[in-house]
């Protein structure tokens, strides 16, 4: 009996008994798999795979038959030097699989679905890596993969399962698919596209904690990075914190990755990592001097150390945040030192601009700062609530609150979190022409249901 026939009969049996694990084992794509080798050799001799599929699966759906025929063809051409063509074949096969998978009685196939989706992404990365990820986004196979993953997501999340239990619904795969999609979007630098996935997950009330821990960690990691991209530092910090805590200690590379973003977010919030932690993950060189400089109020030092690792920070996308948001924290720390030096017990704390100017010039090494700069900085600090008190222009002093003049940085509400999505929606809806800006309904700006 021909290999192909025997193989397909095994497949048939797995399908008839709804045996997902076996099916996953049977449908492989690497040449080290004995099935793949044997099939390829026999198909190369001109055996008509399609006919045999028709023969064995005659009573099954056309979608399934198309998918299996496509799989056989793909296996036959797996070693084709034209990697782009191989990817295209896989992509076409996967599309046919999705047609088959979207039928209501295929929920048992979720493991296979996940496996095929992972393989899609793997292939896409491989192929695009060959060209060094050069060229515009739409030329990349990664882009093609994102579209397929969107389809996957829709199939998975809209599965009602006739009201059956969550464990047997396609929704089981939803976080896995989301994570794959996020990976692509971040690589393609289309981070905004993550928003649709996030909002749909929220809409359908998907409980993240019901999924395997590994998927939770990955999801929260990407979610944290997404929030950082949107300048929502507190939300980012929360997600990254959970991700870090839940990540198994054995996945050191992942833990370190999460930590990088977590540390960056926390520095803005005035929370600093202990040297032991940095040493453990080999992050001392990168962050230690930065943290010391912040606590000292040392502007020049901070700038110097930031520039040292600028390329890395740029790559991570944290550079701007570290450069600008942290600067405000450094001013706060600097002026607090002035306050500590000058304060007298029992008296209302006063901060003369002139003293602050001396401090600022010293800290930054820049002698061009003047009193007006100081005034503006203090206004800024007061506005962002890093400082409590008020200014007196004529006397050129800042009068500080007797109670807590310099609230703890971690307690201060970070400024760009001031706007929430609901208010933004209302604003967009009610916008008038006075502002001079025409608000287009940008499809990337998906509505987030609160």
């Amino acid at each position: 009996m021909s290999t192909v026939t025997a193989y397909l009969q095994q497949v048939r049996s797995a399908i008839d008994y709804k045996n997902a694990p076996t099916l996953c084992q049977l449908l492989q794509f690497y040449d080290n798999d004995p099935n793949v080798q044997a099939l390829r050799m026999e198909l190369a001799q001109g055996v008509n795979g399609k006919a045999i599929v028709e023969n064995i699966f005659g009573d099954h759906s056309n979608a399934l038959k198309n998918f299996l025929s496509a799989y056989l063809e793909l296996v036959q051409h797996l070693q084709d030097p034209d990697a782009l063509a191989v990817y295209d074949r896989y992509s076409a096969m996967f599309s046919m699989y999705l047609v088959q998978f979207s039928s209501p009685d295929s929920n048992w196939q979720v493991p296979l679905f996940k496996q095929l989706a992972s393989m899609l992404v793997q292939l896409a990365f491989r192929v695009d890596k060959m060209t060094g990820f050069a060229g515009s986004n739409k030329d990349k196979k990664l882009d093609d993969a994102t579209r397929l993953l969107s389809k996957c997501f829709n199939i998975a999340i809209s599965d009602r399962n006739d009201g059956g239990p969550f464990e047997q619904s396609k929704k089981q795969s939803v976080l896995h698919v989301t994570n794959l999609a996020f990976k692509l979007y971040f690589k393609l630098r289309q981070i905004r596209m993550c928003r649709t996935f996030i909002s749909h997950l929220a809409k359908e009330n998907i409980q993240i904690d019901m999924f395997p821990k590994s998927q939770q960690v990955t999801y929260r990691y990407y979610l944290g990075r997404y929030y950082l991209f949107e300048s929502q530092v507190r939300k980012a910090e929360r997600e990254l914190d959970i991700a870090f805590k839940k990540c198994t200690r054995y996945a050191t590379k992942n833990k370190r990755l999460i930590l990088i973003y977590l540390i960056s977010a926390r520095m803005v919030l005035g929370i600093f990592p202990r040297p032991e932690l940095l040493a453990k993950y080999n992050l001392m060189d990168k962050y230690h001097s930065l943290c010391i400089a912040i606590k000292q109020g040392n502007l020049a030092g901070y700038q110097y150390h930031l520039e040292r690792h600028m390329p890395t920070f740029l790559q991570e996308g944290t550079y701007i945040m570290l450069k600008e948001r942290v600067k405000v924290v450094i001013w706060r720390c600097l002026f607090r030192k002035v306050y500590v030096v000058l304060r007298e017990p029992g008296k209302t704390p006063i901060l003369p601009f002139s003293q602050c100017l001396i401090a600022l010039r010293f800290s930054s090494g820049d002698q061009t700062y003047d009193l007006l700069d100081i005034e503006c900085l203090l206004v800024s600090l007061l506005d962002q609530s890093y400082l409590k008190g008020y200014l007196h222009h004529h006397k050129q002093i800042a009068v500080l609150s007797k109670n807590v003049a310099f609230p703890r940085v971690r307690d201060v509400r970070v400024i760009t979190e001031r706007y929430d999505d609901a208010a933004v929606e209302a604003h967009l809806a009610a916008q008038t022409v006075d502002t001079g800006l025409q608000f287009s309904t940008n499809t990337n700006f998906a509505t987030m249901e609160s």
Partner: protein
Amino acid sequence: MSGFQPSYVAVGPKKAKRARIRLGQFETDELDDKSFPADLREYVKSVYQYCLPDKRKFVEAELKSTIQNAIEDASLYSTDWNEVPLPSGCTSKVNPKSTKSKSFNTPKVKNAGIFGIKETATELSKRESRQLRFQSSPKPNTPVSRPKPVKRTLGQGDDDDESNVGVIVGTSTALEKSYLRLTSAADPAMVRPVHILKKTLNLLKKKWRQEENYSYICDQFKSVRQDLTVQRIQNDFTVQVYEIHARIALEKGDLGEYNQCQTQLRELYKKGIPGRENEFIAYRLLYLLYAQNHADINALMRTLTPERKSDPAIAHALMVRSSMATGNYHRFFKLYLQAPNMGGYLMDKFMERERIIALRAICKAFRPMVETSYIIQELALGTQLALFEVLKGHKAFFPVNGGTHLDTKAAMPGLTESTNKYAKVDIKGPLSI
């Protein structure tokens, strides 16, 4: 504007040499590297890049014969080498430089209209002479224009079929012309050739300075741009026209027109045509700040080399960005007053917004009141009257001591309300650049 144009890719001298060596037998006198169009050189480069090692000889032979054929029927320049598929024996038949759909595998021969005549340079010049048959007899004081082959810059292949028919050389000598949207192919008698357009430009520059009639000038410029487009002229003169029009538009605060010019200029700069690129990058940055489009700002900043960052205009725009990000109104308004070129006009567009934001912060910080002189100076308002106008417009007009001070607590609610209206919404601007 014009149809599909593959981007001009400049190939450096080193790469050209390699191509020359590989193509051995083409080292004749007529064919030195400069005569090989740039997209052909790119094609050759792609072929060698994607060629399978064991098929090299085979691929080379095929490449040579392809080029030889192109030379023989004089289609070396008119074929779009970016679209020609790579010879078999390469890892992918699809030309990586192609921007068309990848499912096309057959070489697309650029046909002109229904007759399927290949558009070679010789064919085009013949067409020019045929067209002249239908022109009115030349006026006494106009020189007889000879059929000139269409000016083609190296590296540009043919366009899509429909726009091929529109390429003409103008003959009009009218210096001024009103702008009329084209609904059909342009009439060469109405289109001005380059040397006339240059005179037009000088005239318009003078007229603008003397009369400052914006609607007239805008209209005239649009017609000059149209004439350039229709004749497919894309060189430093084109850039000059667009730059001047953009500056005039900025001066009058016409962002729509400015955006159009800016878009075109970006395309032209990409093709390597010289111009004041730094100046316009700075404008773009300021425009994105106006639109609060942070994603594009970050993307743009990522592309800036240290060299560009040190350009005064760009450096200024970057400092504006950073001062806005840190809420440093003191520096921001200082920069506004020092804005180079036309930057100040762009900044005018979001001046009011930044003033309100700064005012609110000031009112939060100073209690019970603040000197109006301080505000006027810091926010670059110029006069007390200007300040009062702004305050009145935002329900924040609460003068104290006859106007020397402002009651900050009372002014807060009005200013807070206005700031919320200007809330940071990350959207793309009116016209995405």
